[in-house]
């Protein structure tokens, strides 16, 4: 089947098997391998992308269902060589360890902040609840999102909490 969509600002069209998952289309045909597959069943969130501005799990839909959609993947998040504030926050606040869940986590967090750039800790935790991380215990992910929110509001982020007084 023929499918066309816009991915990271570029029009793409391709011939796909109808059963091809959107995540496999992105990874294997478009060669955008930053979107990861962790469970293929919609629980882990490693495959999270933006579809028409919403964070969705790209293993839960077929490529053909994204016909005509505007897709953004992790590779398209930085603009003009400038990291997105969430990407910067993950780096500055040690929001990642192995990095496998990170692209999906960043896509969820950036969608959350696009709706609300001043979320409470509770709102952040609920906002990324659909993305599993096994390395960080989420602590520094929450700090990273708080950092990004502050940046987006034009405020100075709180200092990192590993800077202890002793």
């Amino acid at each position, binding site marked *: 089947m023929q499918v066309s969509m816009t991915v990271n600002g570029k029009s793409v069209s391709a011939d796909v098997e109808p059963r091809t998952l959107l995540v496999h289309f992105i990874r294997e045909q478009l060669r955008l391998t930053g979107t990861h597959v962790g469970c293929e069943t919609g629980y882990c969130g490693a495959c999270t992308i933006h579809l028409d501005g919403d964070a969705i799990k790209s293993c839960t839909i077929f490529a053909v269902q994204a016909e005509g959609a505007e897709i953004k993947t992790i590779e398209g*998040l930085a603009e003009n060589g400038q990291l997105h504030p969430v990407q910067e926050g993950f780096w500055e606040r040690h929001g990642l360890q192995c990095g496998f869940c990170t692209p999906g986590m960043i896509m969820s967090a950036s969608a959350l902040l696009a709706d609300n750039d001043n979320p409470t800790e509770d709102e952040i935790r609920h906002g990324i609840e659909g993305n599993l991380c096994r390395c960080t215990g989420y602590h520094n992910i929450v700090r990273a999102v708080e950092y990004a929110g502050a940046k987006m509001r034009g405020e100075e982020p709180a200092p990192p909490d590993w*800077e202890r007084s002793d």
Partner: protein
Amino acid sequence: MATTSVMGGSVRRREDPALIQGTGIYVDDLSPVGLLHVAFLRSPVARAKITRLDTSRAEATEGVVAVYTHDDVAALGPLLAQVPIGKLRPLLAAGEVNHVGEAIAMVVAENRYVAADAAEAIEVDFDELPAVIDLKQAASDEIKIHDELDSNILHTWTYHGYWDALGLEDQSPEVEAAMEREDAVVVSMEMINQRLIPVAIEPRSVMADYQSGYDRFTVHSSTQVPHALGGAISKTFGMIASDVRVIAPEVGGGFGSKLNVYNDEILVAFASKQLGRPVKWTETRREASGSTIHGRGWLGTATMVGTKDGQFLGYKLHALADMGAYTQNFTVAIPLLGLWIASGQYKMPVSWTVDCVTTNTMTTDAYRGAGRPEAIYYLERIIDAFAREIGMDPFDVRKKNFWQPEEFPALMGCGFSLDTGDYAANVDKLMEKADYPALMEMRDQARKEGRLVGIGVGSYVEVCGFGPAVLAEIGFSWTNYGLPASFNGSGLVRVNPDATVTVVIGTGPTGQGHETTWAQIVGDGLGISVDRIRVLHGDTREHPMGIGTFGSRSVAVDGAATYEATLKVREKAAKLAAHLLEAAEDDIVFADGGAHVAGSPDQRVEWAAIAKAAYQAHTSPDDVDSGLEAHTAFSPGNATWPFGSHIAVVEVDPDTGNVELLRYIGVDDCGNEINPMIVNGQIHGGIAQGAGQALLEDAIYDSAGNMLTGSLLDYTIPTATDLPSFELDRTVTPTDVNPMGVKGVGEAGTIGTAHTIVNAVVDALAPLGVKHVDMPLRPRRVWAAIQEARG
């Protein structure tokens, strides 16, 4: 070594720019021209004879290149194991299956969809046999699982016997005698330390490319131990080691699950060799749940004997540990790691027996903590129950029995000595940080209001930094993969002609930030900016020897090796600088990208000039060889023994049994820290996995051996809403086992957490008379305990 802001500084990670932009490379991201894909047919039954296996329909499927079964690979033998006690895993099922998920056949096809379809088209008939899942049933030998073994009990670890050479006495009689004392308070409980699934978010993936013209392999694998895998492949196929190049690129979490060499890795290499094309397999989440190793799985009775005023007189544990159906890498040796810390931080005699039992389930092996969370769980839970029984504060009981600072190195009954520690100071710092009296007051106030609030405390000591040569004698080595025996650290430091530095290490990160930490170690020693240092790892071609990343050993063993190699390079560079500056070698100081004469900062030469001199013989002194590099193998005399104490604050909803973790406070001691930011991150993740075991996670097989928790919907690891932000601090008691004074921190959080949370929940339920609830403390189980207590 010169103190600069680099060592001990929270330097941002060099690893991150690629990973936050989606440009990091994991195995499944690779797809070379001509790549073939693998799918396995796996057993849907737990124990059966295979009476018919027909692959013809799969072979006839369009796009299928080959289908392999046991007969095709029988000559390659079973999967190699390091501690080969028990039944070794056949590469593909050999006429029988022994657990759900066991690989029966391998399909190789042009794409993953076709491979999966074809695997389903294979026809198998089974003659089912009764599965043995329950540990007590298995230990009774009522049904023996493997005909060729005498018993389902594969091995028994006891506190004594193994260390006879050290002349240690069996302390069991002392413990038994203590129980008979008139003034003895004896508290005993049977507890489950349930089976867990490691759940690295990156599924395991392996890609092999056999180049027939050169008779050599390039294998990419999502592994913690590339050198071990390279050794296993070269041994299996009768090749020399340098013809097998194994690369572990970015690895998306391991936690021990990628510390095994797996049958699928050998099989994918086999297929590539047969077909002359690159072949890749990436496990599905269901395969990750049922065919990658599990951890824990103990059922044990812990007994504490002490006096009414809180003096411990002895501790006894008898447990059954589930090994699963087949022995893999370290399987049967895992409980031994628990034995080494059986007495925890306490000076007391111990009687300790763990029976390693085979069942019709997936193999167990090292999962974060590996034997140590189990040992500490039983000990710290029974201490909590003992303190409750005599009505003493749980911290006071612990402090009364700790080894005292002046008693280190403290020789334990197991034969190992605790290196350094100040356990009471660690507890004091935690109590102060948490404002412990205020917490107790808050709890008591909440109780008056009828709320079920609990404060749990827990301590731990662990054993890590696996490198002492003595470990090799008991099977902790890679000798069965053809590598040298001992788990030495390896560090190579090379100053390049352009004055940048290449560091090659014997461990590779699965998220621990080695590229950053090692750059700090070397940069600090040479006075070179971390931006000019590249740390290479995970590629057997870069270095002939590497032990891998596990047992919180990386910094304490390979880091120490790198530190020593750095000193050697600096020594040689000082000769060169002295020559260039016409000064005495002893007066050379390295700082800020160059060397100068002590006391005369103007008499200075840049690293660029030193490096240049090193690589052109005519400008270097006659007695200095050309080049500027050193390799060091570090063999520590002891393991390291990090420790810590934690407090959990919970509230239980009496109507639903839901446990809310309100606060989690930890003071850990891992010796000196190189990068506190990374240390914090390791502890955070460790706590989350301990909390996962305490509250949520349970790998369940039903009585017929069906895996009931094969997806992440059924096997629930913590999400962001299940955990609070953690409140951390540290005490710092450097070790004297290695020159940097570092102990390791990869597993500490996990080892310290599960019992702390269970202690908190039991504290919350104590007013109702509840003494124990088995993990995981999911609402239904807690609710049932409340109902039962209320009658």
